[in-house]
């Protein structure tokens, strides 16, 4: 699933069957190469961050959660990942050799596991497992093997 499709998806409670929020952004941990959590918008309660572990499912149409208890103010690692420096889309893409590969135009992930599967530039598809780091200047990926 592409980030652009996933962002904006409704978050529905399995307990109340009501839409309680909307996905604002996917938070990627470059160390594990996975989506570590979601940043939410339009949530009536306190907090706007949800850890991946607290999802019931990242479904084809909506994201489901069993309880709103997991929705908290951003803190710790997730707060760090929510910063602009940690966004992938739109950032310069550098290979560890010091060669620029273009800009990250889109990211795809596996909705079952949260694993980042592909980084897309305008000309290339780069396997998510090559992801090394995400910083304010660039997204860095391993050399192709």
């Amino acid at each position, binding site marked *: 699933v592409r980030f652009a499709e996933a962002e904006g998806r409704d978050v529905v409670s399995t307990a109340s069957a009501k839409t309680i929020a909307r996905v604002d952004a996917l938070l990627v941990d470059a160390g594990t190469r996975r989506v570590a959590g979601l940043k939410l918008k339009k949530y009536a309660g306190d907090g706007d961050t949800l850890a991946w572990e607290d999802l019931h499912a990242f479904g084809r149409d909506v994201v489901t959660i069993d309880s709103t208890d997991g929705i908290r103010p951003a803190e710790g690692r997730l707060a760090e990942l929510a910063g602009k420096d940690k966004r992938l889309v739109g950032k310069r893409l550098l*290979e560890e050799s010091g060669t620029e590969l273009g800009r990250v135009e889109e990211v795809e992930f596996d909705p079952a596991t949260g694993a980042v599967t592909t980084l897309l530039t305008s000309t290339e598809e780069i396997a998510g497992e090559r992801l090394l780091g995400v910083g*304010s200047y660039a997204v860095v990926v391993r050399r192709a093997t």
Partner: protein
Amino acid sequence: VSLLVRGKEVLKRPVVTLDGEDVAQVKDVVYAPDGGSVVGFTLAGRGLFAGPRSEVLSWSSVHALGRDAVMISGADALGPPDQLDADADDEDGGRGARRGRGGRGGRSNVLGARVLTDDGTDIGEVVDVVLQVDGAADVVGYELEASAALGTEGRKVLVPLPDTLAVSDEALIVPAAATEYVAEDLSGFGAAVEAFRRRLRGERS
């Protein structure tokens, strides 16, 4: 795969960690006292108003020197300025370097030096250094502003260097055969350097 790059092209190149942070940029390239290799870089801060930085980047801490960035593992790869002196001294001991020309010693460079062939022809003035990056960063050639002797006076050409060469306050001496391996641009220059050095080895044995 080795990469050929001009010394001047490396200037201002960002120094980026594998975490994607641009922690500095290259201010100057520092060569070993014998001029044969790069020992590291002096640095400047990033951004419009950033000045020089006191930390340096020694070659041993470089993860990769690429076309668009100098990659390092993390910000702790930068070290105090004396790191480059230490490295330079190591090179000195290991290679029996010459400390002749002020230009070639440690911190300075060969830019502006005359290049003479061993049969006594002035072939031009050094305007840039060609590095081959392949684990180490070796100086494999010079870009010259050619003299009339090369038949391309005033044009910029690339001349391959032998493994070691004689240098003084006045000039650098290269084997006359170097003029047969002159290239116009970096594509193909790697092969020219190899062919030239192969020939020198052949002549010696």
